[in-house]
């Protein structure tokens, strides 16, 4: 009789293990559910980018003011593409996202469709803060039916960063006023580049076609139609919008003039290009100053300077902070998002990584408006960038903006590799339309 008993026990263990296996899957995610009623709360903030959002000091300050709150940041060093992929999955799955998440200008539109997975920040008093944001920034953070999806952090007001030492060696002016006067338009910018190329065979004038293109497109579209690949009803118009073609043609003209360093943006080669100083200018949304400083390092301090960008002002990039519904501490998370996007929070981030505030009060605050950047030869960055930010015309980006943009960028890279600009334009239209389907 002993055999069957042992067997039966074994069977029971086997069965139990199956049951355990089956149930562990069901109880994955219920860590620290305590605390929404006054106890200690840990808030997770998700950001992206090599430099992060520059919130470290602000977290310390907030934790000191709110002893029950602990803040943990994730995502510093993660590229926008990877970050957004992960966030989309987390939001769709309804778990795993942080309590406060960064939404980028180019991707927030995609989340309008999932607005029901986010806390409507208007329920936490966000509407009272409307005056704290540039009107177009506020509009971008709000869904078409009026839910407040995210509060604006920074804007990507544009300028042009250049290496004054290389300019000097090539016989171009180095003073930032005179440099700005060199290029009232992009065509004149290319002409200046040709002059540079004639004098200096060892360096290229522009880092990459794609960076150039994105900046030009956002500027041209801001002045023109007000949208890029999608019109405001989310219809794909890549083949009809003249602004896209204008920006494409300007870029291929720049490539044909032999000005591009052909570096894939955000690649190792691109980073090395900063370190080795292989190019003389880069189109500079405000956040790019942080990238340059991070990549070029101390060795290049004082070599870089900032001038007015060609054409009229424009915007590329900038983010928002939202609170997913999956957060267990929605109230506390909303408060933290409000703090980080307040004038004080934005000034803090500006000081840390140079992200230009989207808050009009912060923009006129002496800490921003009168600020200079030592790294960029003490350039009055506050004045240069803030001037562009206030009278900006917003550009509407469609839901699959990034996918379509990648298709056009690939065509431009192919042109850099020596393919025909006309054929690649046809490829961009075809692949862009497929990507946006």
């Amino acid at each position, binding site marked *: 009789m002993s055999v069957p008993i042992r067997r039966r026990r074994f069977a029971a263990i086997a069965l139990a293990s199956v049951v355990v296996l089956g149930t562990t899957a069901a109880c994955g995610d219920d860590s620290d559910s305590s605390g929404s009623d006054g106890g200690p709360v840990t808030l997770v903030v998700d950001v992206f980018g090599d430099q992060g959002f520059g919130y470290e000091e602000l977290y310390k300050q907030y934790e000191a003011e709110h002893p029950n709150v602990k803040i943990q940041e994730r995502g510093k060093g993660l590229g926008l593409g990877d970050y957004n992929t992960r966030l989309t999955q987390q939001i769709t799955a309804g778990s795993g996202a942080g309590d406060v998440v960064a939404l980028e200008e180019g991707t927030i539109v995609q989340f309008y469709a999932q607005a029901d997975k986010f806390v409507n920040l208007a329920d936490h008093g966000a509407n009272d803060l409307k005056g704290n944001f540039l009107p177009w920034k506020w509009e971008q953070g709000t869904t078409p039916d009026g839910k407040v999806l995210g509060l604006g952090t920074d804007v990507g007001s544009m300028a042009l960063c250049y290496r004054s030492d290389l300019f000097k060696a090539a016989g171009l002016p180095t003073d930032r006023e005179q440099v700005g006067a060199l290029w009232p338009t992009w065509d004149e910018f290319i002409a200046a580049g040709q002059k540079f190329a004639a004098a200096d065979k060892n360096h290229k004038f522009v880092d990459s076609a794609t960076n150039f293109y994105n900046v030009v497109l956002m500027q041209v579209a801001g002045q023109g139609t007000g949208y890029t690949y999608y019109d405001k009803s989310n219809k794909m118009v890549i083949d009809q919008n003249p602004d896209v073609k204008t920006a494409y043609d300007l870029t291929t003209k720049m490539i044909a003039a032999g000005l591009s360093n052909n570096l894939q943006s955000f690649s*190792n080669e691109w980073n090395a290009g900063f370190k080795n100083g292989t190019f003389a200018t880069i189109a500079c949304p405000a956040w790019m100053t942080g990238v340059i400083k991070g990549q070029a390092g101390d060795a290049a301090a004082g070599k870089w300077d900032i001038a007015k960008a060609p054409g009229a002002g424009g915007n590329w990039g900038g983010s928002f902070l939202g609170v997913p519904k999956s957060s267990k501490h929605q109230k506390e998370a909303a408060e933290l998002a409000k703090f980080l996007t307040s004038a004080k929070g934005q000034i803090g981030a500006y000081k840390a990584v140079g992200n230009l505030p989207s808050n009009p009060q912060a923009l006129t605050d002496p800490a921003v408006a009168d600020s200079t950047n030592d790294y960029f030869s003490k350039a009055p960055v506050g004045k240069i960038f803030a001037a562009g930010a206030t009278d900006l015309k917003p550009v509407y980006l469609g839901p699959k903006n990034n996918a379509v943009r990648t298709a056009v960028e690939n065509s431009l890279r192919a042109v850099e590799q020596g393919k025909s600009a006309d054929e690649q334009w046809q490829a961009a239209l075809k692949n862009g339309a497929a990507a946006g389907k």
Partner: protein
Amino acid sequence: MSLDLHAAAPPEPGPPRAARHTRSRAASLTRLDLKYSPYLYVLPFFVIFAVFGVYPIAYTVWIALTDRSPLNSTISFVGMDNFVELITEDPQFWNAVVNTFGMFLLSTVPQLLLALMLANALNRKLRAQTFFRMAIAMPIITSTAVVALIFSMIYAKDFGLVNWLLDSVGLDPIDWRANRFASWFAISTMVDWRWVGYNALIYLAAMQSISKDMYEAAALDGASRRRQFWSITVPQLRPTIIFTLIISTIGGLQLFTEPLLFTSGSGGLSGGSEGQFQTITMYLLDVMNQRFRWGYAGAVALVLFVLIALMSAINYLLARRISSDK
């Protein structure tokens, strides 16, 4: 077996009614135990297989029949539309198929041949035999990401090692990412560097189980080493070759990390400016994570599944002919 007899034994005469009742219950439990507990023992595997194998595939089939996307608030059933679009009007997909098969051939054929030769060499008496056998296995334990990063630098356009070598012998440098064949070649070398040793090790293990008598007999009959290799070793390795072929087919058609990391920076999933080295799995992720067409991505995944099954079958049939059925 003894339990069976026990259960089948006739009941002893005259036990109290209650006792007899317990007795027969115990017996029927025993019978149940015998009949069903083996199933219970194998159950954990099948439960795990169902959760991680059957369910995802079934769910993929379901998703592939819908237009599911995080951007759609409603999901509608679209039937075969995704498959029709994929097969009839998606040049990017077919481009990815061509790339995948191209790189598969370019990497697998030399990989298995090299592995076979390496294993044959290591099967002889050598000094420091263990060292060499260990050494060929080293690449397997390095992470694919690291391999890809290092090879990306070797094949860099401006400061790469290969272009430097080409330059020093007076050849023009190659833009490895711009040219389709060059990119395939570069990626194939990454794959081969990593997997030749693995296959060699498998062949080596199989070679050691081939009886020495055969070689001795062949040598007595005057067969050269070369002849011995093709007439004894290769036919004897047939099952092993089939195994490595199928494993390489599955791996090769799912090629992902190497071509993805071959692009540094933004736009890695595009696999080059014109999709020169975008594989099917990269396209799958492009569709899923950049375009958010989850239903369509499901269709891509299923077509990939069918392609792998087909290729494995073809390889199996080809490999069966190696020994020409003597």
